[in-house]
């Protein structure tokens, strides 16, 4: 609790980094909105439930977009919720259009903006034929990158444009050791060839990551992505990002691609729902504890309380009547 690194940060910064204030504000706001109902069963309970749901990642369900976008944890939870709710769609093998995916997103968040979905679709379709059908997994991973790192991607796009047009953004950066070296390496705009040179691109990205405090993919992984190719286009880069399982794991919201459709706990739940409705056939079993549902994001990125909680499925609460 009293580790030196935590005490090193001034108060506000510490709170901000953990987004604690966001949640506090939101909690109080929710309290205000529903005070008649909540006062029935107590404020302490409300706060317990609220923060429980934050830990479990269910706090973003049916909330407005501004809240969902507010913190990385929210974004990751939203991605996870989307995956869980519509995994069966993917399993069914349906290929859907961008608009339909957007509809599904809107089921969970009524005012989700179309631009984000469009951008995600562009990644999948390589900016081509926007009416094409996409598979669930393709869309999901592209959407993950786009949504979670949306500010990062915007900056990357700007950098890419600059590089394409020949300007080297390195020239205006606060000098670090790496950029100082590369100031002499003026690569002229090679607009004739497609894309930009990978290594130069990487330099700029590295600076970007250092400079900004919003979430970026781990630079090491980005380097890995870029090391395989000489030149790459913007969308090529994004597609590579989305398919890179390391980044996916770093994000921690979604399982690996192979496991995307796999989730026996939820499957069992589903089976129960599909059982013909006769009261005598209610299954009372609990979900098997070895549910292979991957653990939620890195405990280090979350409030420490999370680590103390069970994954919900393993509670007795798999019965749909509870909770």
């Amino acid at each position: 609790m009293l580790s030196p690194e935590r005490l090193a940060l001034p108060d506000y910064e510490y709170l901000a980094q953990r987004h604690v204030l966001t949640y506090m504000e939101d909690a109080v706001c929710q309290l205000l909105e529903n005070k008649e109902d909540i006062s029935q069963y107590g404020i302490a309970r409300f706060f317990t439930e609220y923060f429980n749901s934050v830990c479990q990642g269910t706090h973003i369900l049916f909330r407005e977009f501004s809240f969902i976008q507010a913190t990385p944890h929210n974004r990751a939870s939203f991605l996870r919720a989307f995956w869980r709710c519509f995994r069966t769609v993917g399993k069914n093998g349906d290929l859907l259009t961008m608009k339909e995916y957007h509809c599904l997103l809107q089921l969970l968040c009524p005012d989700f903006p179309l631009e984000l979905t469009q951008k995600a679709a562009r990644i999948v379709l390589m900016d081509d034929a926007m009416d094409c059908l996409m598979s669930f997994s393709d869309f999901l991973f592209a959407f993950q990158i786009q949504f979670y790192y949306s500010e990062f991607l915007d900056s990357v796009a700007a950098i890419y444009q600059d590089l394409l047009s020949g300007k080297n953004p390195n020239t205006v950066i606060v000098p670090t050791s790496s950029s100082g070296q590369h100031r002499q390496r003026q690569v002229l705009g090679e607009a004739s060839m497609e894309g930009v040179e990978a290594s130069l691109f990487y330099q700029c990205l590295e600076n970007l990551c250092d400079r900004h405090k919003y979430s970026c993919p781990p630079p090491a992984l980005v380097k890995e992505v870029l090391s395989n190719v000489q030149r790459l286009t913007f969308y090529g880069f994004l597609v590579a990002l989305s398919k890179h399982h390391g980044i996916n794991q770093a994000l921690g919201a979604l399982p690996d691609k192979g496991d995307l459709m796999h989730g026996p706990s939820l499957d069992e739940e589903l089976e129960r729902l599909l059982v013909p409705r006769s009261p005598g056939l209610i299954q009372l079993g609990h979900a098997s504890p070895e549910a292979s549902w991957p653990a939620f994001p890195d405990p280090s990125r979350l409030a420490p309380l999370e680590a103390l909680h069970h994954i919900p499925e393993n509670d007795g609460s798999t019965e749909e009547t509870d909770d």
Partner: protein
Amino acid sequence: MIPGKYRSVSGRATNNVNCGLHLVIQTSSLPEKNKVEFKLNKDTPSFPGRLLQHDLERNYSSRQGDHINLVSSSMPSFPILQRSSEEKILYSDRLTLERQKLTVCPIIDGEEHLRLLNFQHNFITRIQNISNLQRLIFLDLYDNQIEEISGLSTLRSLRVLLLGKNRIKKISNLENLKSLDVLDLHGNQITKIENVNHLCDLRVLNLARNLLSHVDNLNGLDSLTELNLRHNQITFVRDVDNLPCLQRLFLSFNNISSFDNVSCLADSTSLSDITFDGNPIAQESWYKHTILQNMMQLRQLDMKRITEEERRMASILAKKEEEKKRENQKQSLLKEKKRLTINNVARKWDLQQRVANIVTAQDRKDSDSPSQDPCQIDGSHISASPEETGSLDSGLTSALQGLSVIDSHLVELDGDTLSLYGSGALESLDRNWSAQTAGMVTTVSFTFIEFDEIVQVLPKLKIKFPNSLHLKFRETNLVMLQQFNALAQLRRIDQLTIDPQGNPVVNFTLWKYYVLFRLSHFSMQKINGTEVTQNDMIMAERLFGILAHVASSELPQYRLISILGDARKKQFRYLLETKGKKPGIVNEENNDSKRLIGENTNRATLNYTTRDFYNERLEEIKEKKKFCKMYIEDLVKEATEINMKNEALQKLWPQMFIELVRDAVIEIRNKNSYMKLCLQQITDQK
């Protein structure tokens, strides 16, 4: 001696007459010779009796052959007829020259007081050589080859003129025959009724088997009683109401197809007998009662007496026809009006959509985007460049306003279907519908109305039309699956029809399954006309079941309640309580009821609020958010201050503690002075 060519051929049974030596007498012939019988004889005294065509067509025999001498005259073509004087005296006023193979009319000498002349069954082509017979009353030229009526101008006393079965093409040259009583022109080629207007004594006019196509020009025939027009090609009949005495009119086997074409008959007060058989009009279902209704004076129709019963039926049926016609007219008027209104509504909707599209396109594109296409709106002929889009909007809105002057919405209740066109129609749900009519409505159809607007009136729909089971949506801008959530609040839906036109949501692969999933408690039977199978239901559950599960069981309590509102509070309180009481133990009974409740509520949190409402709500929350932010900031400030103070205290405390201890030790070093000090302090306290 009669020249051979005038000898007739014997062989006709009853009707042969011959001149010369061969004499054939009628069947009932008497052995006595020289007995002649004129059928006509009987009728002669009361000449203007009933002369029916039938009688005239039948030949009467006469027996005059013996006494007729046809001698060739000086003129090569005209034979001269001479009779013996006994004949002349016996039959001084009648002369029969039937079947004499005459090709021309012979010159008849010395018979100036002849009154009846019979030329039947000859080959006469022209009426000639009879001008001198100025006392002629009866002239029979039936069955000849006469092509033109002529040579009659001196026969001023003529009363009966029989010209049937000839080749006459035109009625003419009858000017002087003012006493004509019977005119028989049947079996000719007459195409037009003309030149008969002066025949004011004419009682019978026979124009059957001619080529008449219409009947008019009958004025002046003031005595006409019988008019026979059978077997012509008549389509029109006019002027009959100008015949004051007409009693019998035979129009069988013509081409009359509608009563309007013979409407003058209704105005004739004298008509009592009429035939229409063989006309197209007689095949119509309304024939009899229309005729009867329009010609109340009739006594016989198609040779059958008209009974009172028939008349009554006719008037009833005619009234029904009238009403039906009026109804049809009204219906077609209404239909036309409806069509116009619907067109109007459609146009308005179209314009609205275009405006909306332009607006959203503008929102998306930033103002610095250079490549905006000029927009062309066909309906109002406005072409705009990006700078003018402001004026484009105003142009369109003024076009919109112009349209709304005419009817801008339509409400139609048709038995079991209520159709609403245009958003103005939604207000009609406020009307006072009678319980009976409202109860009969099972289908409600919405067209050209925004779905978001419909959502707002769904509660009203639920109350006012409780039996509505089938909803149809066309051109209602259904774009999101979420919008279907709004339909869950209705009592029941059996069938749902979402027309692809104007509803983009239909293009989604999963929309049907989502509908089945969200509205599963309705157990819908048909979507867009196709039956819902068990497989569909299972698929829907499979696809979206997890969503429901997440939506119900993973939401925190307070969220559930705030979303669901009062109605569900009780249910959930119940759930809460049971959960609290029996945390891991499952009671069979409870599970049942929970399951039942769960089925309905587990997707109840999937709601739809229209975009506007949503934004409104977000606006409202902004205030609260601001307050919360400030409040938290204050708290944080306090907390950090306290924390700082705490930290500061932590830092300073060792020092402070040492000082405290030192001060205390110093104080107590001198026991006595310390004791005195304490005592002093105690006394001071008072």
